[in-house]
C-alpha cells in the first residue's frame, strides 16, 4: 500500500491551515498533513515545515508524562477544558506505544477526552510511536510545528513515561509535568535521575487515594536532596537547561473531579512566566532546535552517506585498500578518513 500525495495536494492543505477562520475543512487539512508526516517522515516534512515555520512560536507547549494508568489522559482533558473555557484553542497529541510483536497499536486516550470532542477549538490526535526509540521522536516535533502554525494557543503532548520518551517530551515542551500517583508500588524508586531533571512540575494525581500525602512528602524530600547535588546527567544536558531558582512544585490533583486543576494551571503559568522573566526560555529553545536539527541531520546524513558510499567511484579506492590489506587500511581507519573529508568539506 503506497502513500498517495502530490505536491499540489500538500500545498492545498498548507493553504487551508493558514486560513484565519476555523472550519471543518481546515481541521481535515490539518489531520491530513499529520497523516502525511506520520507516513512520509522527513521526506514529506521537508516540504511542509519550511512553508509554515514562520507561523510558529505562538503556542505554549505542555508535556505530560507518567506511567500507564497514572491519569495522564484524564488530566489532559481537565486541563484542556479550562483553557477552552478561557476561549483558547487547544490541541492534544496523545502518543502510545506500538506493539513490538504486531506493529499495531491500541490508542485509547480519546476515551478520557470525550467531553470536548465537538468543540471547534479542540483538536486531538492519537499517535503510535511506531517503535521509534524515543517514543516521541521526529514526527512529533514536526507535528507540533504544524499544530503551532494551525494557531493552537496550547499544545498538550501526552506520552507514556517509559524509556526515553520522557526525555524526548522535555526536548519539545515549554513545561513538562510528570504524573506520579500514589499506590503504584515502589515506583518512586524508579524516578530515575533523568526524570528528576526534566520535571518542571510534579503532579500527584489520584489525590483521593491513600498514600497521596506520603507521595508528596517523598517527592519533597527528593527535591531537597536534588537541590544539593550537582547534575551530571549529560544525556539530557540538563545542566544547560536547568532552571536555577525553579524548584518544581508538587501538586496534588484529582483527574476525575478536577479538584486542584486550577492550582495546577496557576503553576504552569508561573513556570512559563519564570522562563520568560529569567531568559531561560531562550536556552530551552536553543536546546530544542539543536535536538531537532540533530535528528534531521541524522536522517539526511545517513541517506547521503549510503548514497555516496554506494555510488561514488572514489570510495572504491578506499575499498581496494581494505581488500588488499594495505598498511593502515581497515574499515575503521578508512571510515575515519572519509569522515575527515566530510568534515573538511562541510564544517570547516
Amino acid at each position, binding site marked *: 500500500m503506497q502513500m498517495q500525495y502530490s505536491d499540489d495536494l500538500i500545498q492545498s492543505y498548507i493553504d487551508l491551515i493558514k486560513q484565519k477562520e476555523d472550519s471543518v475543512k481546515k481541521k481535515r487539512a490539518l489531520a491530513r498533513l499529520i497523516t502525511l508526516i506520520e507516513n512520509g517522515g522527513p521526506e514529506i516534512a521537508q516540504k511542509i515545515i519550511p512553508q509554515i515555520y514562520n507561523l510558529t512560536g505562538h503556542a505554549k507547549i505542555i508535556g505530560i508524562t507518567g506511567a500507564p494508568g497514572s491519569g495522564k489522559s484524564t488530566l489532559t482533558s481537565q486541563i484542556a477544558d479550562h483553557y477552552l473555557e478561557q476561549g483558547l484553542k487547544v490541541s492534544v497529541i496523545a502518543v502510545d506505544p506500538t506493539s513490538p510483536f504486531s506493529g499495531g497499536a*491500541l490508542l485509547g486516550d480519546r476515551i478520557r477526552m470525550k467531553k470536548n470532542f465537538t468543540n471547534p477549538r479542540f483538536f486531538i490526535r492519537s499517535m503510535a510511536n511506531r517503535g521509534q526509540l524515543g517514543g516521541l521522536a521526529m514526527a512529533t516535533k514536526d507535528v507540533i510545528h504544524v499544530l503551532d502554525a494551525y494557531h493552537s494557543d496550547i499544545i498538550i503532548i501526552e506520552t507514556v513515561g517509559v524509556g526515553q520518551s520522557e526525555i524526548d517530551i522535555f526536548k519539545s515542551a515549554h513545561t513538562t509535568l510528570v504524573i506520579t500517583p500514589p499506590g503504584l508500588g515502589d515506583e518512586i524508586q524508579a524516578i530515575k535521575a533523568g526524570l528528576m531533571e526534566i520535571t518542571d512540575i510534579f503532579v500527584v494525581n489520584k489525590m483521593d487515594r491513600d498514600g497521596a500525602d506520603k507521595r508528596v512528602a517523598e517527592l519533597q524530600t527528593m527535591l531537597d536532596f536534588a537541590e544539593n547535588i550537582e547534575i551530571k546527567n549529560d544525556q539530557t544536558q540538563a545542566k544547560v537547561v536547568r532552571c536555577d531558582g525553579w524548584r518544581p512544585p508538587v501538586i496534588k490533583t484529582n483527574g476525575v473531579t478536577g479538584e486542584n486543576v486550577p492550582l495546577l494551571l496557576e503553576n504552569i503559568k508561573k513556570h512559563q512566566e519564570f522562563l520568560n522573566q529569567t531568559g531561560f526560555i531562550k536556552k530551552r529553545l536553543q536546546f530544542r532546535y539543536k535536538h531537532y536539527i540533530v535528528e534531521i541531520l541524522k536522517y539526511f546524513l545517513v541517506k547521503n552517506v549510503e548514497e555516496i558510499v554506494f555510488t561514488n567511484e572514489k570510495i572504491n579506492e578506499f575499498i581496494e585498500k581494505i581488500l588488499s590489506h594495505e598498511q593502515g587500511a581497515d574499515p575503521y581507519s578508512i571510515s575515519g578518513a572519509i569522515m575527515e573529508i566530510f568534515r573538511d568539506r562541510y564544517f570547516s
Partner: protein
Amino acid sequence: MERKIRLIVAKPGLDGHDRGAKVIARGLRDAGFEVIYTGLHQTPDDIVQSVIQEDPDALLLSILSGAHPVLFPEITKKLHENGVDDVLVLGGGIIPEEDVPALKEAGVSEVFGPGTKIQEIADYIRANLKR
C-alpha cells in the same frame, strides 16, 4: 515502506458495555493495525469529529442495542456532509441479516456479525481501502 493502516472502533448509542468492541480493537491491533478506540456512548457528531481529526482509513461501528437502522445512516450522512468520502465504514455487533441491505444502501460497506473472525475483518479492510 508499508503504510500503517489506522482504524477507529466506535460505539454509537446507549449500549451498556463494550466488551465485544474491545475484543475487536485488540484483535485488530494484533493484526498490525493502529486502532483508535473512543469508548462508549458516542454521538454521531462525536464520531464524525474523531474521524475528521484522526484521519483513519476505516471506521468500524459496533452496536448491540438495535439502534443501527437510525444511527449508522445518520453517521454516514454526516460524514458525507463534512466531505469525508474516502473512509471505509463497517458495521458490527448484533445486526439482523434483513437490516443489512438498507445499511449498505446508506454507505456501510460491510457488516460483520458476532461470530466473525478478526482475520476476516482484517482481510476485508486491507482489500477494500478507499485510499
